[in-house]
């Protein structure tokens, strides 16, 4: 309940601001041809990025987990790392190398390369957990490998792919950095423009509420896909499935996967290194870099812990109770995720100054902003983990006389532990890269790596900015590795 209230802060604020506009203006704003056009452009971008991310994410996960593709260990290790690259860094790398990429092409390319790990990670975990026996049965019944993949394997990973796809869709909807660098006009751009041009908070609020409506529509769609989740008792037979022999396709498949990883990971890092070497002459402010690393690690860690604490109850509720109440609470938490950071930040400025002036522009309020922004990331992880463990275990525990609290402590939480851990790592990673809310709400005088990066690129000092970008990537790699381990060991209840 409390969690849902926290998630409602920005919506409440938006309603207050939008109400100031009055019904006549609200209709006028919504009916503007440009508004309609931009909703269309946003949806086009979201559809393309989500579809491509699902294809790439599922494809890479299948190659890494179920086939004899050469170099699959390396692939499995490198595939999630693009999560560590902020989308604005990737966008800058691409546009400085290929100026003609600006527009829809560039936006789809960059966002897909940044986002596919959101699909890859849960699908990989699901594939490793799924009992390959089903596929073998299908093969023995005369299905071709392709039919088996389509009818059996895909069905098993559908809930994970849908959950990942939802995160991709919401992220794409709320992203501003990449689309503004790549000059593809979408919805977030109008919201920013409304603030920039006339400091007109009412118009921005009306448009943001429209964005919230879109989010709810998307997450309702996702829960339809998820309706038929499969849970089973135990983790099936813990064994390595017989890898699928790709035969003559081995090399092209490996090549394709290699290209994706090089473009998503190698290219932006190479670009940062290039700028780093050109900027070395400018000297390196080691003190500031160290302080930035410390502040980023500390604030993100607080954000991850707070988000996880909030996500556990919501995630369990969403997985175990199919009531309207649970659904509403879960979907409320998604609202914050699709709003541009600046909107969430201003909502907390409004609230912070009036309600908790002592916490305004101090760590607690910034952490609260992270919770509002990234709660869904953690909720999704917890939920799919709980959903995949059978409810029977809890029922048995109850029938043996355990109190509800004890069941939660001894059965549900241990079963959900891998998901909780993965969710925490994912939030940690996302907090590190966050910029707009951090700028407005950080304690005066504190700089994170993202804000220092912003300061340097603001005057075009890309060489001086590169060390902060590299440090951010290196720092973000740590939770990514933790994420991979969490999904590798995700074998349900054995411990």
């Amino acid at each position, binding site marked *: 309940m409390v969690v849902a209230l926290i998630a409602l802060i920005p919506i409440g604020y938006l309603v207050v601001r939008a109400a100031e506009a009055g019904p006549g203006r609200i209709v006028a704003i919504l009916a503007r041809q*440009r508004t309609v056009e931009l909703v269309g452009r946003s949806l086009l971008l979201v559809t393309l990025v989500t579809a491509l991310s699902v294809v790439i994410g599922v494809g890479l996960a299948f190659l890494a987990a179920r086939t004899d593709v050469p170099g699959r260990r390396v692939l499995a290790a490198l595939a999630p790392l693009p999560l560590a690259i902020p989308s604005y860094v990737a966008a800058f790398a691409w*546009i400085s190398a290929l*100026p003609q990429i600006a527009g829809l092409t560039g936006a789809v390319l960059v966002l897909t390369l940044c986002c596919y790990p959101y699909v890859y990670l849960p699908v990989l975990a699901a594939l490793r957990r799924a009992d390959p026996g089903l596929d073998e049965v299908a093969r023995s019944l005369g299905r071709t490998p392709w039919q088996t993949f389509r009818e059996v394997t895909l069905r098993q990973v559908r809930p994970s792919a849908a959950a990942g796809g939802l995160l991709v869709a919401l992220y794409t909807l709320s992203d501003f950095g990449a689309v*503004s*660098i790549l*000059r593809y*006009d979408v919805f977030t751009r109008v919201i920013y*423009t409304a*603030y*920039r*041009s*006339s*400091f*007109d*908070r009412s118009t921005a609020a009306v448009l943001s509420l429209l964005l919230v409506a879109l989010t709810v529509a998307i997450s309702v769609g996702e829960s339809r896909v998820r309706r038929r989740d499969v849970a089973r008792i135990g983790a099936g037979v813990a064994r390595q499935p017989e890898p699928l022999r790709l035969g003559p396709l081995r090399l092209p498949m490996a090549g394709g996967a290699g290209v994706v990883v090089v473009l998503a990971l190698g290219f932006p890092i190479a670009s940062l290194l290039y700028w780093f070497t050109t900027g070395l002459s400018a000297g390196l402010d080691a003190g500031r870099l*160290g*302080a*930035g690393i410390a*502040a980023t690690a*500390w*604030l993100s*860690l*607080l954000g991850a*812990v*707070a988000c996880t*604490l909030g996500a556990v109850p919501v995630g369990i509720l969403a997985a175990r109770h199919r009531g309207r109440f649970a659904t509403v609470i879960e979907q409320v938490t998604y609202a914050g995720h699709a709003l541009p950071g*600046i909107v969430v*930040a*201003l909502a907390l*400025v*409004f609230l912070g*100054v*009036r309600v908790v*002036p*002592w*916490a*305004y*522009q*101090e*760590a*607690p309020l910034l*952490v609260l902003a992270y919770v509002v922004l990234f709660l869904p990331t953690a909720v999704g992880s917890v939920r799919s983990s709980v959903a995949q463990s059978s409810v029977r275990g809890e029922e048995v525990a109850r029938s043996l006389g355990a109190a509800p609290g004890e069941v939660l402590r*001894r059965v549900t*939480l*241990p079963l959900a*532990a891998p998901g*909780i851990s993965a969710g925490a790592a994912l939030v940690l990673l996302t907090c590190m890269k966050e910029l707009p809310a951090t*700028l*407005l709400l950080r*304690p*005066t*005088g*504190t*700089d994170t790596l993202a*804000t220092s990066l912003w*300061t*340097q690129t*603001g*005057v075009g*000092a890309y060489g001086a900015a590169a060390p902060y970008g590299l440090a951010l990537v290196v720092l973000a790699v740590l939770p990514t590795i933790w994420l991979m381990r969490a999904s590798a060991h995700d074998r349900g209840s054995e411990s």
Partner: protein
Amino acid sequence: MIARRTLTLSAAALLALSMAACGQDSGDGAQEPLSDDALVIYSGRNETLVGPLLDKLETATGVDVQVRYGGSSEMAAQLLEEGEGTKADLFFSQDAGALGALAKAGRLQALPDATTSKVQEGFADPAGLWVATSARARVIAYDPAQAPEATSMTTVDAVLDPKYKGKVGFAPTNASFQSFVTALRVSKGEAGAKAWLEAFKANEPKAYDNNILVLDAVDSGQVALGLVNHYYWYERVAEKGADAVNAKIHFLDANDPGALINVAGAGVLAGSQQSEAATKAVDFLLSDEAQQYFADETAEYPVVAGITSTKHDLVPLADLEGLAIDLNALNSLEETLAMLDEVGLT
């Protein structure tokens, strides 16, 4: 086992959060806690550019100074949202538009005449709510190999010539470019400005993310002409030496919108507990020392008479003054952006 770990983790988390709530910060060189007698400055100007100058404010004002850096527009929205609960005493802005919006919302207090009278005519808000601290001119950057004739251009209309098709660079999202379009609307009227923008678009100009990249493109010959602010070129020449910079810049006629003068400025927040110190800070930004800093370090125009740059060969501001635009009028940005949208130049 895991349950116990979870419990430990939660306990640790709660402890950490409550510690954070006590206003502990991230242990990065231990900030002094914000005391009520500190002067809080919101700076929309970049730390790299003005940090060294603002560091001197403690000496100039005699109080503790805390500076927050951010984007001018975002900070203006933040100040409006904070309303009377703001901790900020002074807003140092990258452009006049953000100051104009705060003035319009009644969030700024009038500066004393002694302060506003320091700047040259036309560089303070008529009601004295804010004052310009430095100025920048719009110029045409050109590649001498491709467009040597740029030296004789008098008006920005020259970039509409079909011979520059696909050869003009600009930064559509840059606030200074948008101010130029506002100036275009003021001088040519709405219909005239729209016709100009349509002709400009038909000439297939190349859009870049910022002024720096436009100048890069001119320098490397990717484009023949670029619409930029003057100081980018001066900074580059100071950094690389005049011989290493291929691009040149040309100042258009003073009364042409393409020669618009934009300003950065400062205003004191209404209800500030520190209005005396904040006013002293504004006076410092208008002092000879600070004006010399703008002229030398950021290659901007001083707004106080009698200061000339010792580093850059700046055309005197007096020669550029012409286009009479009330700088507050530049906050009609919304109409400008709507027009750019309509024409498809975003």
